[in-house]
């Protein structure tokens, strides 16, 4: 596992953070991530992150649930063990609606939750590097990844100049739990949006 260096800048206000993100990106620094205590709408766009595909995954899981219910009940009642309920048709679709609906929702929810945990690499006992413990309380923590060309002192001064209250340099090991950050290519770098 490679140990990488990061310059960490902590911001206290959302408004300052937003303009700082724009300045950092337009100055050519490589933002590793921004850690915030709550969801901040628009920050993902400002960072140039692409929209998540979790919805699509949820839709596919839902369809799997629908298909499972219809095929399962259909097979049981028409081929495996057809029961005669007062001469009514074996393929009684309207009566299967409730279970089909419930399984659609069940598959979709469980699938999405597990996918969410997998993508964010969340699990019990997961060990991760926390750049600043106050990032889950009241600080907005911007982390810039150092490349061979980065001058740390210069970067720190730059961050302070754009409003960071607290600046430091940290070394962190990128492992499985930092997964996608191990790759050099960032998911947002090939999309030129939100830099207006």
């Amino acid at each position, binding site marked *: 596992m490679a140990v990488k260096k990061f310059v960490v800048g902590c911001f206290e*206000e959302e408004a300052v953070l937003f303009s700082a993100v724009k300045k950092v990106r337009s100055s050519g620094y490589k933002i590793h991530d921004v850690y915030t205590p709550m969801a*901040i709408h628009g920050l993902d766009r400002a960072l140039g992150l692409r929209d998540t595909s979790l919805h699509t995954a949820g839709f596919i899981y839902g369809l799997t649930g629908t298909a499972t219910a219809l095929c399962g009940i259909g097979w049981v*009642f028409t081929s495996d063990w057809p029961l005669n309920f007062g001469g009514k048709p074996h393929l009684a679709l309207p009566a299967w609606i409730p*279970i089909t609906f*419930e399984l659609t*929702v069940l598959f979709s929810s469980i699938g999405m939750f597990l996918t969410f945990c997998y993508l964010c690499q969340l699990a019990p006992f997961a060990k991760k590097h*926390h750049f600043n413990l106050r990032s889950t309380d*009241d600080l907005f923590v911007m982390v810039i990844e150092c490349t061979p060309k980065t001058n740390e002192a210069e970067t720190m001064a730059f961050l302070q100049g754009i409003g960071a209250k607290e600046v430091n340099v940290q070394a962190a090991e990128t492992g499985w739990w930092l997964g996608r950050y191990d790759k050099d290519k960032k998911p947002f770098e090939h999309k030129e949006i939100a830099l207006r």
Partner: protein
Amino acid sequence: MASLKYESQVRPPLVEGTKDYHQITEDIVRPIERNPSTLWWIGFLLAVSLLCFGIVSIYEVVVYGIGRWNINKTIGWGWDITNFVWWIGIGHAGTLISAILLLFRQGWRTGVNRAAEAMTIFAVMCAGQFPIWHMGRVWLGFFVLPYPNTRGALWPNFNSALLWDVFAISTYFTVSLLFWYSGLIPDLATIRDRARLKWRKFMYGTLSFGWTGSTKHWQRHEALSLVLAGLSTPLVLSVHTIVSFDFATSVIPGWHTTIFPPYFVAGAIFSGFAMVQSLLVITRKVLHLEEYITVEHIDVMNKVIVLTGSIVGCAYLTELFVAWYSQNRFESWAFFHNRLDLSSPLGWSYYIMMSCNVLSPQIFWFRKLRRNITITFFMSVIVNIGMWFERFVIIVTSVYRDFLPSSWSTYYTPSIWELGFYLGTFGLFFTCYFLFSKFFPVIAVAEIKHILKKSGKYYKEKMGPEEKESVEEFAHEFSHAH
């Protein structure tokens, strides 16, 4: 960003006082970090003792059979299905607050959603006990699950409302749990990062799944919450619809009416909001969260109570009208003799139901009464009593005098083990709720930070002069300008 911070002059803020993000964390997390109070211990031990009574009652029923309950031939469902429907109904308010109000972008839900969702999960757990132990031979309970088996390919009946219920309730429980827990993860991380004690760091570190608060994770988290809300909304409606199908697909007078699904769903939300009120009025006081769960929240929830109470009232009247209009002799007997007739053995229960559910909530048309904490608490208990009697009326008065007079059981009273089982579920519910309020944040910390606007410290400091002026000043200037 200033435009995002705009707050209406007319509407009061959702969080009172001047707060910054750190203060919010302090206020909500502090009760978790302190030692529990004497009051908490008293409440918790009381709940645990009720739970023990429940366990003894279940032991009796499992060892000696469900004959321990006074449910004879005609009243096959007695108290236990009443309690089942009552508990499952209570759960619905949590999902309504967390899911439906999220879709409608109602900001006030953030003050109450976490506790309400927890209440949903505990209520569904309590509800689940009744069908499970009513099975009698509970160790064969897995027979209801469809799986390839060696009993000669014996499948459950997928066309039966009771099997739909198995699917609906287990799905409802699972989805509610996932929704609640995914919302809890960031807040548990907040507690983890503040923790000084080793065991607390370990416990919350494990529970928070290693959450860091990365922007990409928040983006996915928001997407997950929104889709789960979208899935939970039809789900919660379907669950009580299917519970009402347990009755409505039968051929019993008083049960087989098409109005049941909407009527049950409205009743469920009604009783659920009452339970949320009961719990939160006490929680906000004990944990000093009055600035987060404000009188405004209580006011809004009382409006929901008067609305859903009136919907339920309309449903009662519609049922009576249809019973008369159908000119069906059995239907008329169920409604006009078994229920409306005060001199019939269980006629009184109908009047308790009517007065608690339809008449008494009407006091909430008055703003002053809606904002009165004592009255709210009192009314929330009354509503829950009323809603329990609604299910009792539907279940018992429809069957205790049925088609065959020789099988009439004139008077039905529950046995001590039926009562004990019911009290035991209260024990289970409150034991869980006490543990929840001790070890988990009762308010969604991250979500409250998200809606913090006018009351936020930074906002107040930087507020433009035009936003400081009052409505009167604005109206005055406006009239002069024209």
